[in-house]
């Protein structure tokens, strides 16, 4: 079963994503901020990461910068998710290594389709 890590500080958002992805047949892990996200990623070696941008302790940008320098995370799909849906945020996330950007709100179908497409 493919592993997906959700790094998100807002419990409701993480819970919804977890529910959607579990129904899609994935093994889902969550992390409450960028720092915990980096530790969990190294520990579980996920196949896909969703990371929020604005988080306490370490942001999504920090997570991207720190993971992308590690050999095992250089090609891993990491999608940034954010309530700030602007092009600038998407560009900033891509500049530090995000594979793509998923603006909030997202529909359950979009999330599943995206993961299926990337992981197939």
């Amino acid at each position, binding site marked *: 079963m493919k592993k997906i890590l959700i790094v998100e*500080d*807002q*419990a*409701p*958002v*993480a*819970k*919804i994503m977890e*529910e*959607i992805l579990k*129904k899609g047949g994935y093994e889902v892990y*969550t992390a*409450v*901020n960028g*720092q*915990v996200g980096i530790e969990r990623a190294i520990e579980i070696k996920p196949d896909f990461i969703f990371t929020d941008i*604005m*988080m*306490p*302790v370490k*942001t999504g940008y920090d997570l991207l910068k720190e993971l992308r320098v590690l050999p095992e995370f250089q090609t891993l799909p990491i999608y940034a998710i954010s*309530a*700030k849906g602007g092009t600038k945020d998407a560009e900033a996330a891509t500049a530090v290594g995000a594979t793509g950007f998923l603006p*909030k*709100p*997202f*529909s*359950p179908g979009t999330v599943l389709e995206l993961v299926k497409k990337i992981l197939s």
Partner: protein
Amino acid sequence: MRKILKFLNQYHLYVLALFLFFIILFQLEVKLPLSRYIAIVFSCIVFFLLIILIKYEREKSILKYQLSYKNTDNEIKINAIGKAALFIVHDLKNPMSTIQTLVEMANTDQISKEERIRNLTMVYREIQRLNDMAHEILDFVKEKLILKLEKVKLDSFLSEVCDFLKIDFQYANVDFQMDLQYTKAITIDREKVRRVIINIAKNALEAMQNSQIKNKFTISTKQLGNAVLISLVDTGSGISKSIQKRIFNDFVTEGKPNGSGIGLYMAKATMDAHGGTIEYHTEAGVGTTFNLIFSLEEKDEKNINR
């Protein structure tokens, strides 16, 4: 002498121009009757006075504008709210996007009845969060904090508030403890005190994310003579020394990616309006305790200026 120097300093160009005018007249050996000289000097004096008067009026009107701008509390607040708007909007967007996704999920046949009920409970919770934010901003901008006092059974009230908070604490892997010894009713504004507790708890949660240990948050109540004490204790990183003295000022925030700096300011205003007290003890790496003290003396409907 100082006044003359000051005058010359301010109007030296005009004095110089007048001086040159007389030199030219003498150089050209223009013979004018004394009355003409007097008329020229008199017109120059009037000219000077006019310039001084215009400058004075202009400075006075600028000062008046600056004073009116600086002295209106509400204008400062609204201006500052504009600066904090980005953070507030971001905070509002999260529950809104959650509601949108949950409603979409509830609108399919693929979920069970239990899941639908659970999702709708989450929708209700998110709407409550939006409602809290909207009321907090409105209370902040208003000049008066008006309390809607009612008798509230403290343990049931706090259990309800804790139910709302537990999801976030469980998600962040923080142990949530309750020790509600005081079970009688107290007279408070239910919604405003609820927001005080949620704000302090949210700050505590933010402070407990940077540690490797299993963190704990405890909410307890007990009677202290003629008052009731609500204690909120966390095992977080503590409040940074740089903001400790200003913690109850508006727009003071640190370490939170979307902090608007309104929460603790409103907590203090709410406690003051209740005739109560808010105090805190903090230690770096050990944690922070916030104490809310409510007097048990009967109080009338209050309408207190902040």
